[in-house]
């Protein structure tokens, strides 16, 4: 490839073919087809593994065979094509799944799109299910994903910009924004950061995410990775930027605030008090899953005096024959929980159910009966786990569950003071954190957000005819 960088096509057809095939390292799936058009030899070059043969037949070969006109360009008028002149462009086009048409005595090549249409149908996202609202989800194709957004935002304001990253992966990164709502400085910064990616080999969304984040070392995700178009469209309206990486079924939203992670599109689709209730529930779940195990350990090990007497004896009864320190208990139970969760994720869904049964009955009750872990600790860890699963975005859910570990250690060594210090550190970090330059904890007009129509009815307007 490096040899042919600046080389141009010549008028010699055979020479051109030879150069192209060597340029493609004589790969075995590079196929040629020779047809005659206006008494001239025409060669079609394509990668057998990428293209759709039927499409070549219908859109290239049959128009050429009909001999409507003497020029190739006019014959191909129903198909989309581009003209290429350098060998480098041609090999890139081939690798992207285009068909190259070379003509005798012509130093230009035609690159025709004939990519095979093998892609997943648009289905509901498995990770972000809702009961109310749209059931479409992003697929592994950036242009399909952008079309899902365009359908929701039918405006010329909706702008897409493409970047290409990696010399080997050569993957497309699409930056979408609404021109009127987006902050120009933020947009500039995001594009700047993405441009730094262009000489890296990008395969995973995480790589893009890392490039976009202000603090990649923070445990908190600063870009929201969603599989739901309605969520992405909502954030676009609020001035955020949506980034797609081709071949990844998710959108990266930035800047984003912490409270967005606690919200599901379903909430916004509900009445205001339902919305408020579920938001509060998730807030509670967040607090519980971070602090509950630590709180329990601190009470158990240091501050039993704060317990009412009946609770005290209930607790004492449950921990009486357990040989381990509560810290050990919590660590063991958390590990068991993570193991069960991991096992059920990796297994096929039919077998995963078995894991659920084994986890619930065998480990859950047997571990208590054998006095390895106290009943209360099982309850505490179960509540913690369930609370963390309530968080709609998987990334944040895991983060929150893991955030409880440092607090557990602090609680076991320093009691409530440890928890207080730990929470202070978390708080300071969150307050300092920014997402694409915007404060992470920033949630303007949070109360008004529970009502869906932000415009208030003015007096005399919108009244019904009877009045």
């Amino acid at each position, binding site marked *: 490839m490096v040899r042919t960088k600046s080389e141009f096509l010549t008028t010699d057809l055979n020479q051109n073919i030879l150069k192209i095939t060597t340029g493609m390292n004589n790969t075995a799936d590079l196929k040629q087809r020779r047809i005659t058009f206006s008494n001239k030899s025409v060669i079609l070059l394509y990668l057998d593994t990428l293209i759709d043969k039927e499409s070549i037949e219908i859109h290239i070969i049959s128009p050429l065979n009909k001999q409507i006109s003497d020029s190739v360009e006019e014959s191909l008028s129903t198909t989309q094509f581009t003209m290429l002149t350098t060998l480098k462009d041609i090999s890139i086009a081939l690798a992207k799944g285009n068909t190259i048409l070379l003509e005798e005595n012509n130093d230009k090549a035609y690159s025709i799109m004939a990519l095979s249409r093998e892609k997943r149908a648009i289905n509901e996202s498995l990770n972000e299910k809702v009961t109310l609202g749209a059931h479409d989800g992003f697929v592994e194709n950036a242009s399909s994903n952008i079309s899902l957004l365009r359908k929701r935002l039918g405006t010329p304001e909706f702008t897409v910009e493409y970047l290409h990253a990696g010399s080997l992966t050569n993957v497309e990164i699409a930056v979408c924004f609404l021109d009127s709502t987006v902050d120009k400085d933020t947009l500039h910064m995001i594009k700047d950061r993405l441009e730094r990616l262009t000489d890296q080999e990008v395969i995973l969304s995480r790589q893009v995410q890392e490039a976009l984040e202000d603090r990649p070392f923070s445990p908190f995700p600063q870009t929201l990775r969603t599989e739901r178009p309605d969520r992405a469209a909502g954030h676009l309206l609020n001035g955020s930027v949506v980034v797609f990486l081709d071949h990844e079924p998710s959108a990266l939203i930035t800047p984003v605030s912490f409270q967005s992670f606690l919200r599901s599109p379903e909430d916004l689709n509900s009445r205001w008090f339902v919305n408020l209730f579920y938001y509060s529930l998730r807030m509670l779940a967040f607090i519980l899953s971070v602090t509950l195990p630590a709180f329990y350990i601190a009470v*158990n*090990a*240091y501050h*039993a*005096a704060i*317990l009412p*007497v009946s609770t*005290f*004896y209930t*607790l*004492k*009864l449950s*921990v*009486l*024959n*357990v040989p381990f*320190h*509560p810290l050990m208990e919590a660590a063991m139970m958390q590990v068991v929980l993570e193991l069960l969760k991991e096992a059920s994720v990796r297994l096929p869904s039919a077998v995963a159910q078995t894991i659920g049964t084994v986890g619930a009955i065998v480990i859950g009750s047997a571990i208590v009966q054998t006095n390895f872990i106290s009943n209360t600790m099982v309850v505490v860890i179960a509540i913690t786990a369930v609370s963390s699963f309530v968080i709609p975005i998987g990334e944040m859910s895991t983060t929150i569950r893991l955030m409880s570990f*440092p607090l557990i*250690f*602090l609680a*076991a*060594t*320093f*009691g409530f003071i440890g928890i207080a210090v730990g929470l202070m550190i978390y708080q300071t970090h969150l307050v300092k954190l920014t997402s694409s330059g915007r404060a992470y904890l920033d949630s303007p007009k949070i109360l008004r957000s529970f009502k869906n129509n932000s415009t208030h009815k003015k007096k005399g307007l919108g009244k019904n005819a009877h009045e």
Partner: protein
Amino acid sequence: MIYLKRLLLLLIVFPLLSGCWDQNLIVDQEVMNGISFDLKDDKVKSTIVVLNIIPKGSGVFDFNNQITSATGHSLEETTEELRMYYTGPLTASKSRIVLFGEDFAKKDLESYLDLIYRVPDPYLGSKVAIVEGVEASKLFSLEEIGTDPIAFGLYEIIDAAEKNSTIPKGTLNTLFTFFNEKGKDFILPILKQKGENIMVSGAGLISENAYSGESIPLNDCPLLLLLMDDYGHLVNLNSYIDKKKKLNNQVSYKITKVKRKMKVNETPHKKPEVDLKLNLEVSLTQYPGTEKLTTKRIKELEKVITKDLNKRSKKIITATQKANSDVLGIGRTIKETDPSAWQSYDWRTTYPHIEIKTAVDVKIVNTGTIK
């Protein structure tokens, strides 16, 4: 990054250095539920009861009380000995009841109980009572009251008595506030053992933070609480219809509304006079007659009850003055309204001789569900 490294280092080093020295696991704790103090040969005898839970599998459990006593010249001296009897660190943070033997109660409680308030461990919500007749520690040897462990049972007994307006609500904490307030004395419940059972037998009058030895009998207690304006959920009283104390001759009534007015009048000869007016609205709960209650009969009953209550309240006031126990808080009222006058009194010597006029007025507003 440097900060992170330092933080990690600290997190590792601190637990290693400190070794969780102040850790106090629930499993290890020996929790005393009941505490009693007696005087014996010029020494304090402390008795504590620790409740041990014995799990019998799948949520079933049994309990037993471990009772130990120690004698010494101070509470802390006895506690030191008591600690030696138990398998774990002893804590009073879940104590339910603190009992005083009669002799101990007659000492200055404030100075004796100093330990309880100085360290943060004891539970200030514990109920407090005086035991009459036997040594306070004897009550613990009953082990159980009904199905409750002894300390819990005693707590419930006193709690029920508070709800029935036999004694005012009180805990170690309220005791402490009374210790620090001159001009108001308080009442402690008196417990008596009758066979296998324990009952609240009256309200002991405290004078100058020590039990005076005088007590108000059980059936007058609600009236005393009404006079003190410190009654509970339910206030029930009985009066004899005519003067004869004979079988089934009592009218009973529940107080539904109370209006109390206390006025302290200055007199020139350095003795305040107190006017205490009590307006009660009552609802009949028992009437031994079989005839329908006419308006005229109700008026008559009102007169009978009023007369009876006036007589009894006079008796109660005389008793408090005899015990030199200012439970009505007259001293406090004077202190609040006229500090200079308060300064000039020696309240302990003044109180038994001041004139307290009580006037109870009763109105029957309801005859229950039947006429």
